[in-house]
């Protein structure tokens, strides 16, 4: 148990964060709070995947200037010396995707607010129902 917690502290952290985000996303009625929850949720997953790249005793994946290869392209490096660059690349993309989704969601929130004057989900549904729109989203 203790070994699991020590070895997987990153995973425990991300699961706690993810649960906070997931609860905010599904349980909160304010749309901005849902959006905040969505961001926490995405970022927790990004934390998880980035932490998969870690290697004990390794440095950042940029070639050291003072390494003995002297920048000779023929020398094969030791893979244990640098951390895994792949999760960093993947999560850079995921971060961009998260930012882009947030931008689009904010634009939608602006439109919703200018149209209905509220961002509370129950009030919104009430307004849409009372407007007699047959295609109001159901709960």
């Amino acid at each position, binding site marked *: 148990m203790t070994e*699991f917690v020590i*070895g*997987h*502290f*990153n*995973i*425990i952290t991300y*699961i*706690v964060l*993810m*649960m906070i985000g*997931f*609860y905010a996303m*599904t*349980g909160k009625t304010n749309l901005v709070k849902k959006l905040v929850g969505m961001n926490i949720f995405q970022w927790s997953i990004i934390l998880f995947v980035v*932490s*998969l*790249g*870690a*290697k*004990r*005793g*390794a440095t950042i*994946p*940029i*070639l050291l200037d003072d390494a003995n290869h002297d*920048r000779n*392209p*023929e*020398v*094969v*490096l*030791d*893979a*244990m*010396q*640098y951390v*895994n*660059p*792949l*999760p*960093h*690349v*993947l999560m*850079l*993309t995921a971060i*961009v*995707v998260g*930012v*882009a*989704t947030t*931008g*689009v969601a904010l*634009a*939608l929130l*602006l*439109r919703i607010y*200018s149209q209905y004057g509220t961002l509370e989900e129950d009030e919104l549904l009430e307004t849409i129902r009372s407007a007699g729109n047959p295609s109001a989203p159901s709960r």
Partner: protein
Amino acid sequence: MKSLHLVVTSVTGFLLILGSLDVPDTGDPSSPPSLHVSPRYIERGFAETDVPNMVTAVLADYRSFDTLGEVTVVFAAAMSVLLILRGGRRRA
């Protein structure tokens, strides 16, 4: 309603903890991600791409199509926001 969300959240968290039992320890140099695909990026990255920053080498060369997708997402977001907002009422 609130309790349902709490239950769903807890079940998700429990499932994830369960799944994490088999995930290798943080920083374990013998974990599959450290041994399978990534060593080539580190060992041969500079020889193959001439770029000392391996993250850049993977980002812009080995997996550059992902990066094209990433920039496309940014472009899509800009166009989407333009589509959503700019047709409406606008100040000056």
